[in-house]
């Protein structure tokens, strides 16, 4: 579908009351039950934490420009990288897409008026905010220096920093994500519009369904683990410290039982965003819809069975390690299926060179590198050398930043007109996508080489021969930072000065493009009746 005069006309004639202007007071926001307003609250709060986590990342990159520890003390450095990790993982990456775009879009995409439990949705945001405040107190009150992994017995006995407060913050943030996951699962099961069968759901919804299952089943385990950690640190219960009769490796098993699936919380939603954007950019039905949908579910299930690949050198059983390794290799298969299907979607498409397209291509490039380098690390014989080096750091940044953050930013640009009702300047969107792509590669590609040379992660000072690559990485980080600041500027500008957005600026398919921009409080004037498959841009040719 193209943008026609009628569309523009229609949006101007649209009901003037929408979710943004049906109330203005602070109370109308802080007590809202509208999933779209809660999504906006989340966008604002996770942006604050993204900026804070980014600030800590910049401090790390500044310090690592020289081999000596000349900018800050070792204790400070350890706190800085720990806070970078804790903030980015628990307060940005985990909620990033689900709590913002997911919150906004899942009900609209299934044709519902809101999520199943609007009050629980609001509660999840408040829990997140309280967790965020606790985390901030932990930072301001002296910081925490255990890394985001909280490995025992360092965290439980030896560290002199605010471990309990930081663990409490992560514990609370977990409940916020359990509530979000619960809401999505119930909504997707029970609130689909008439005619919206499971196999007509947009792939964004499938990926959020898979993500929600992980949130529901995995997060309670990290909660229990953090409680055990706090009990040991606070009251001397002996779970993990061998001096108290505990087992330090037990902590790693419990921690990664959640935190490996959590990695898929930090990538699956962006895969959903990608599927939507690829279809819109090529104006084509996503190739092999069922395979892309089920690959999300396969990743969620297999993701629960691979935690031990973080522990190949930890002294876990060799044979357990073998099982974890082979299942990890199998995760490569659903990931490959997705990439091949996206590629096939572009084949004979009608590809537009706009901001979304730049993000789609950037994501494909970075996710390819991130996913493929996983093969090195799942190889037991090679992981012995690579474990806990910068190779691992580079690999997971390619997945989490190259994947999830690219997906988040791309999705923000894609749905920005729907969320705000305003258009942003497309040229700036393309410039920023390009800067992010170049800056990201310059930051993290050298770290693969550093890792293979043997530079361990979490090193404040390092041998001289690693300096050149570290300087390259820090230079890249400054370009990357620019790539993140520019969208912040023009997107904010567009809210006040941007031209009004039509209902369907990209000519894309999906229920969210059939309602107004921004949508009314209950999303649709009347409940939609779904009569076609997702991404039905034209009649489908059978093979």
């Amino acid at each position: 579908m193209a943008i026609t005069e009628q569309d523009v006309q229609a949006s101007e004639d649209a009901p003037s009351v929408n979710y943004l202007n049906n109330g203005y007071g602070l109370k109308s926001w802080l007590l809202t039950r509208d999933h779209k307003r809660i999504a906006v609250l989340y966008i604002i709060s996770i942006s604050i934490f993204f900026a804070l986590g980014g600030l800590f990342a910049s401090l790390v990159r500044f310090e690592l420009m020289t081999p000596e520890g000349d900018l800050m003390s070792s204790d400070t450095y350890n706190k800085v990288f720990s806070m970078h990790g804790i903030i980015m993982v628990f307060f940005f990456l985990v909620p990033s897409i689900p709590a913002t775009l997911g919150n906004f879009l899942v009900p609209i995409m299934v044709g519902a008026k809101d999520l199943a439990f609007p009050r629980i949705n609001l509660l999840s945001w408040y829990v997140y905010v309280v967790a965020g405040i606790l985390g901030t107190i932990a930072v301001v009150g002296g910081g925490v220096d255990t890394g985001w992994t909280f490995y025992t017995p360092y965290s439980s006995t030896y560290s002199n920093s605010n471990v309990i407060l930081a663990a409490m913050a992560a514990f609370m943030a977990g409940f916020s994500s359990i509530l979000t996951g619960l809401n999505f699962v119930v909504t997707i099961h029970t609130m689909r519009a008439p005619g919206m069968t499971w196999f007509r759901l947009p792939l964004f919804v499938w990926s959020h369904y898979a993500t929600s299952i992980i949130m529901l089943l995995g997060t309670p385990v990290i909660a229990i683990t953090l409680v055990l950690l706090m009990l040991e640190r606070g009251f001397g219960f002996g779970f993990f410290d061998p001096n108290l009769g505990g087992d330090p490796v037990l902590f790693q098993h419990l921690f990664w039982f959640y935190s490996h699936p959590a990695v898929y919380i930090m990538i699956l939603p962006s895969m959903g965003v990608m599927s939507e954007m690829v279809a819109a950019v090529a104006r084509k039905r996503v190739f092999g819809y069922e395979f892309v949908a089920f690959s999300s579910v396969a990743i969620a299930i297999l993701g629960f069975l691979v935690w031990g690949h973080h522990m190949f050198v930890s002294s876990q059983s060799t044979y357990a390690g073998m099982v974890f390794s082979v299942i990890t290799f199998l995760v490569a298969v659903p990931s490959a299926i997705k990439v091949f299907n996206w590629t096939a979607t572009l084949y004979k498409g009608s590809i537009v060179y706009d901001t979304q397209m730049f993000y789609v291509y950037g994501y494909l490039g970075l996710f390819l590198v991130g996913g493929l380098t996983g093969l090195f690390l799942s190889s037991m014989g090679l992981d012995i050398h690579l474990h806990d080096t910068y190779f691992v750091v580079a690999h997971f940044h390619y997945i989490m930043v190259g994947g999830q953050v690219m997906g988040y930013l791309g999705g923000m640009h894609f749905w920005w007109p729907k969320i705000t009702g305003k258009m942003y300047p497309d040229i700036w969107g393309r410039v920023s996508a390009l800067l992010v792509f170049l800056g990201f590669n310059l930051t993290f590609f050298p770290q693969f080489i550093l890792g293979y040379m043997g530079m361990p992660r979490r090193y404040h000072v390092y041998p001289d021969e690693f300096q050149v690559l570290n300087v390259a990485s820090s230079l890249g980080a400054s370009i990357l930072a620019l790539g993140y600041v520019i969208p912040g500027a023009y997107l904010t500008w567009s809210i006040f000065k941007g031209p009004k957005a039509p209902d369907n600026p990209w000519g894309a398919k999906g229920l969210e493009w059939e309602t107004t921009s921004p949508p009314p409080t209950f999303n649709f004037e009347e409940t939609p009746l779904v009569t076609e498959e997702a991404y039905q841009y034209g009649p489908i040719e059978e093979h």
Partner: protein
Amino acid sequence: MQTDFPLFPDQASSFAFQVDALYFGILALCVFFALLVVILVVIFAIKYQRKSDDEVPRQIAGHLGLEIFWTAIPAVLALGVFVWATVLYFHLITPPPNAMEMYVVGKQWMWKLQHPEGKKEINELHVPLGESVRLTMTSEDVLHSFYIPAFRVKKDVVPGRYTNLWFKATQVGSYHLFCAEFCGTEHSRMIGTVHVLEPQNYEAWLTGGTANEPMEVAGERLFEQYACHTCHKADGAGRGPSLVGLFGKTVALEGGGTALVDEAYIRESLLNPSAKVMAGYKPIMPTFKGQISEEGIIQIIAYIKSLKAPELTRME
């Protein structure tokens, strides 16, 4: 800043080459798939650029054959890499039986190493060229990880248990020794140097300097100091079992089951003696927890290992 900088680590152990071969093997696979996808999407972008704003392309739902094809190929390749990497892994963790024994204790923030002949080192390890060396390691406090990039070996050093690592150095030189597991403030300064020496130079180094008490002698001294010998009599007439020739044997336990008498078993028996009592003996041994240092325990283990029973082995 250095102007001359390396991009690849030294290959200084017998399996560095094998690890690197696997690395380049996987790298080739990755480059192939990455280029395949990148070339395709770039061609598509050029060839299928949107011509007009109302253009709608032909819709293709999918293709079952293609789906099976690109599910099966990555699955087979991934399993192939798994087999390659796992075979290599077993080689990397299985020391030859005649390997030299050395001992490592990690603590915040230093490496303490000891040779069986008694020589002690801190943050330095001297090893002979071409000899297999097996390290037995433990930690006094938090987790550490013993990592020599040039040898492609790494193993976590865990408080409360022994872990092992082995290598055979193949190139004379000095190489980095890193702690790879975050262990607190001075984690990045818990580093050292591994010196690979020609065998004769190693012998000279070992006998040079001050005279050292061999580990088994030190262990024997501790054995008597803690009065172990009053119960563990060599002839088996004491209240505890004789330790002669016991190391490496599998023994029956009181209450059923068996246990292999290895480093971990001896350590446990010292710290928690009632956990695994040998069949036929009473749980009367006191715990030595908090009384013997990790290094002391290792010396006692070295002494017990040295208690060979030559006539017995001949009979077997």
